């Protein structure tokens, strides 16, 4: 069928602007699919390789009793079970301070090994050598040979950095599951010989880290071993999936996975709709030709496959380079990403099936888009050849006119009737607007949500400016209160705990605050404010996670001290970051005095006119103070990155506008093509091109504006679904979109739509009336 192929090529070339728009959209969609999916694969592979290399644990048991390691090591499912200790202590590096963590590494460790990137491993018998974690080293410009001071109850103790290292446990430097987003200048890790850490006193937590044998049934063995460990008196257990660093990275990886789904759906959807509109028009325009070919003996099948080939061909022309570009972009993303978060190993996994799927998307998408028009062409009878080019759509009095109070002007009637004359086309224009809105609102909504959540966490809930850690448990806090710029000081206790209800356990942080604290507000989901009483206030996710209700009694086991007590649930708070527990400090002091004194710190609020840095320095100079941690630094860091976030929204805005463009441009040109004879006649009768353009602009804008409201609703629900997929006990991602965002998004997409129809309108001016008459059908 060589001539048929020539016809196909020339038909497409005749509509090259529309076809190009579709091809580019397919290209972008397939490229983004390939890039995000392969990036997802490569990141997963990079982590897996790193995890294998360092023997990343499968299970952690914290506050493990003596002998548990031997029990676990003897289990047939266990490859290795090792003891190591960790302790959270203030560090002093030069004149900067932070509360960091020293992680013990036993001699000959096979589980959770430290990968030395610079310098050397410490001498296992040396008491004053450490390996600094890469993130700490970077944040404080530490080099091999530098000195770091570690707080002890008897004062600062210097240790030497003999190496810079990385560990799978702190690939992303999270302090705990509840504090996933620790900032590198507020939290960092030193690796030291385990006996040294074990000797750090009661604050040191004894962990057993477990690696399973290969090939064992992961889920069932992990839960069996966890149950076994808890029964033997372990404080808490968590698996690799729950491990803070890994959990944080998985959220990101999952994001790539999500994008690899969202992008092709939006872009191929838009391209498909554009193709559908274009091809439907083409079939209508060519019906006399199709009838003639059918009369001359072309079979239905041949007609069907001829028009199907338009979609498939266009899809492939976009998808094949798109798949190639996607594979390339995936490499760049994988390297940039692992580089940006300093994963020491980058494994680029180029999955041959990804480009194959990308190409398949183009092919199947093209075929789907062309399916209905091709069916329509196939159904045309040879007798169509006897009809001249038929006008499309019927004019009729529309519903709008009937329900409109009063009479519409002639021009308004024309606009309304034309808009409804070809509902298929108006729907495509509207869908262009909907798709554009969706892409923009999903990304913009993400940023709005983050900002709303940050505001709730750091402005409405947390009322302190800094948390103060001491070298030794403080007697009284009056010295802090006297520091210039301090408005209020309160004692606080922060400790890791396990909350047990029946056979369910949840590891979190327990805070003890003054009963009438002004440092933290306890807000419920409906924004009611709770007060501390005799019971426990917990994050609302525990309602489902532990299956508990207000009034139920839970058992709290304190990580570092092993103290255990029962306490009733007094209420549920709804907090964006983490799912934590709160109780009255005095009550805690009564039932768990060890931890109440061991983990005692202070919350400080600054005067609003004070310079936070100056107050922080004054506080750090106060005797007994080890470190002052700003509690709103995360918010400040997020603010710093807002520019970046908005750049991301900007890109999505461009892509969203592109989506709208493909459909609005296509429908506008198709609209004009369908009315070529009509427009040519009007031109001939002296209606100016500008007048015609205005009529059609008003018509298009009417359709676009009408699509905006339902479009925003659809976009809202897609964004909400997208957001909900990231929601967990650690991050509450409930979609919040500020009213202005809706307005700006709608405006942006409408402007894009308005601009998109301009090039189409130009055909009015260049319309060759003579040619129209000669060819009769265009």
């Amino acid at each position, binding site marked *: 069928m060589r001539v048929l192929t020539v016809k196909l090529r020339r038909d497409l070339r005749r509509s090259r602007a529309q076809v190009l728009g579709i091809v580019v959209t397919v290209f972008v969609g397939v490229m983004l699919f390939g890039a995000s999916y392969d990036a997802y694969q490569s990141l997963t592979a990079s982590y897996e390789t790193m995890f294998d290399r360092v023997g990343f644990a499968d299970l952690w048991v914290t506050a493990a009793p003596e002998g548990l390691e031997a029990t676990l090591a003897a289990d047939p499912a266990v490859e290795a079970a090792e003891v190591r200790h960790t302790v959270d202590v203030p560090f002093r590096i030069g004149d900067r301070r932070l509360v960091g963590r020293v992680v013990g590494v036993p001699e000959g460790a096979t589980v959770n090994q430290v990968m030395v990137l610079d310098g050397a491993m410490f001498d296992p018998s040396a008491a004053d050598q450490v390996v600094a974690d890469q993130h700490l080293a970077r944040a404080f410009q530490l080099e091999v040979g530098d000195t770091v001071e570690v707080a002890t109850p008897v004062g600062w103790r210097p240790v030497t950095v003999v190496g810079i290292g990385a560990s799978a446990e702190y690939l992303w430097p999270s302090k705990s599951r509840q504090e996933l987003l620790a900032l590198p200048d507020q939290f960092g890790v030193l690796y030291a010989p385990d006996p040294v850490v074990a000797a750090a006193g009661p604050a040191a937590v004894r962990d057993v880290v477990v690696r399973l044998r290969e090939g064992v049934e992961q889920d069932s063995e992990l839960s069996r071993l966890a149950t076994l460990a808890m029964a033997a008196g372990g404080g808490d257990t968590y698996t690799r999936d729950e491990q803070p660093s890994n959990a944080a990275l998985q959220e990101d990886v999952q994001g790539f996975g999500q994008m690899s789904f969202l992008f092709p759906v939006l872009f191929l959807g838009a391209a498909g709709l554009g193709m559908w509109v274009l091809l439907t028009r083409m079939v209508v325009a060519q019906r006399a030709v199709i009838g003639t070919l059918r009369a001359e003996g072309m079979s239905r099948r041949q007609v069907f496959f001829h028009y199907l080939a338009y979609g498939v061909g266009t899809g492939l022309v976009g998808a094949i380079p798109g798949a190639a570009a996607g594979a390339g972009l995936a490499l760049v993303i994988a390297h940039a990403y692992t580089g940006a978060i300093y994963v020491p190993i980058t494994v680029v996994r180029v999955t041959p099936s990804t480009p194959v799927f990308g190409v398949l998307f183009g092919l199947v998408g093209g075929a789907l888009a062309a399916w209905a028009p091709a069916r329509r062409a196939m159904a045309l009878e040879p007798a169509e*050849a*006897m009809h001249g080019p038929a006008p499309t759509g019927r004019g009729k009095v529309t519903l709008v006119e009937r329900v409109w109070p009063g009479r519409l002007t002639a021009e308004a009637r024309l606009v309304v009737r034309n808009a409804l004359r070809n509902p298929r086309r108006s729907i495509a224009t509207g869908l262009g607007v909907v798709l554009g809105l969706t892409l923009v609102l999903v990304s913009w909504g993400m940023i709005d949500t983050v900002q709303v959540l940050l505001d709730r966490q750091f402005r409405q809930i947390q009322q302190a400016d800094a948390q103060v850690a001491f070298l030794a448990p403080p007697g009284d806090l009056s010295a802090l209160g006297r520091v210039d710029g301090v408005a209020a000081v309160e004692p606080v206790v922060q400790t890791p705990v396990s909350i047990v209800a029946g056979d369910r356990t949840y590891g979190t942080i327990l805070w003890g605050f003054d009963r009438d604290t002004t440092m933290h507000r306890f807000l419920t989901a409906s924004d009611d404010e709770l007060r501390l009483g005799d019971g426990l206030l917990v994050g609302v996710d525990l309602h489902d996670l532990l299956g508990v209700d207000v009034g139920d009694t839970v058992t709290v086991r304190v990580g570092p001290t092993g103290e255990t007590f029962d306490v009733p649930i007094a209420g549920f708070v709804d907090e964006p970051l983490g799912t934590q527990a709160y109780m009255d400090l005095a009550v805690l002091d009564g039932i768990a005095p060890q931890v109440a004194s061991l983990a005692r710190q202070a919350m400080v609020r600054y005067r609003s006119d004070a310079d936070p840095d100056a107050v922080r320095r004054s506080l750090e100079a106060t005797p007994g103070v080890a470190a002052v941690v700003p509690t709103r630094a995360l918010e400040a860091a997020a603010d710093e990155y807002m520019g970046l976030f908005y750049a991301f929204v900007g890109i999505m805005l461009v892509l969203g506008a592109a989506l709208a463009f493909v459909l609005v441009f296509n429908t506008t040109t198709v609209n004009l093509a369908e009315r070529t004879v009509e427009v040519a006649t009007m031109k001939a009768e002296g209606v100016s091109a500008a007048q015609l353009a205005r009529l059609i602009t008003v018509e298009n804008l009417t359709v676009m504006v009408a699509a905006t409201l339902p479009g925003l609703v659809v976009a809202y629900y897609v964004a909400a679904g997208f957001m909900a997929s990231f929601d967990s006990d650690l991050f509450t991602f409930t979609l919040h979109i500020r009213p202005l965002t809706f307005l700006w998004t709608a405006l942006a997409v409408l402007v894009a739509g308005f601009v998109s129809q301009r090039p189409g309108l130009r055909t009015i001016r260049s319309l060759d009336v003579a040619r129209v008459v000669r060819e009769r059908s265009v």
Partner: protein
Amino acid sequence: MNEMAVRAEGLGRTYGTGAVAVDALVEVDLEIESGQFVVLLGPSGSGKTTLLNLVGAIDVPTAGHLEVDGIRLDGLDSEGRTRFRREHVGFVFQFFNLIPTLTALENVQLITELTGRDGSDQARAALEAVGMADRADHFPAALSGGEQQRVAIARAVAKRPRLLLADEPTGALDLETGRRVLDVISRLNRERAMTVLLVTHNAVIAEMADRVIRLRDGRIVADTLNPNPVAADRLEW
């Protein structure tokens, strides 16, 4: 004795059913000899197109028997009709229906390719036969109406059908242009011994036919042989 190109018995075509039924063709008995140039005349709505479409297997009779080129058409399924059209008939319509994105030659070649012949020689020969060989590489927009119609005729006869069906082929053309188109058709009729069935409103055109059949209200009301057909270039109207 010439073989029969068309043999119809009690042929009928009713559109719609019940109250809205239209009898477009009623009880038509007809035999057309191979190689005859037949003109179908009749007022608008008399059933000319309907008859032509039945003979060309574009449409299906609702009554009677129909045999064209020795093939029974009544009872043929859609695929069978497609195959029949592909092998036995060529169509010329009032509207030329050329594909605007293909040149004259390509428009013709498309059909020869579709019908399983390889093509370009046959297509060229067909253009030659209609006197359009020198415009083979022009696109339809660059051709006059008469030229477009001649290309359409070339397209219809390129596959060398035994039967040419033309429905108002000059309907959209002026006198002079129409004459040239008719001349092409009559030459193909003579030189290739191709049976021609031509529908027209224009009684003058009937003068060039071997035989004139008049229809009214779906029935044949007159069927006359024309002993001295006039050459197309001598027609006057």
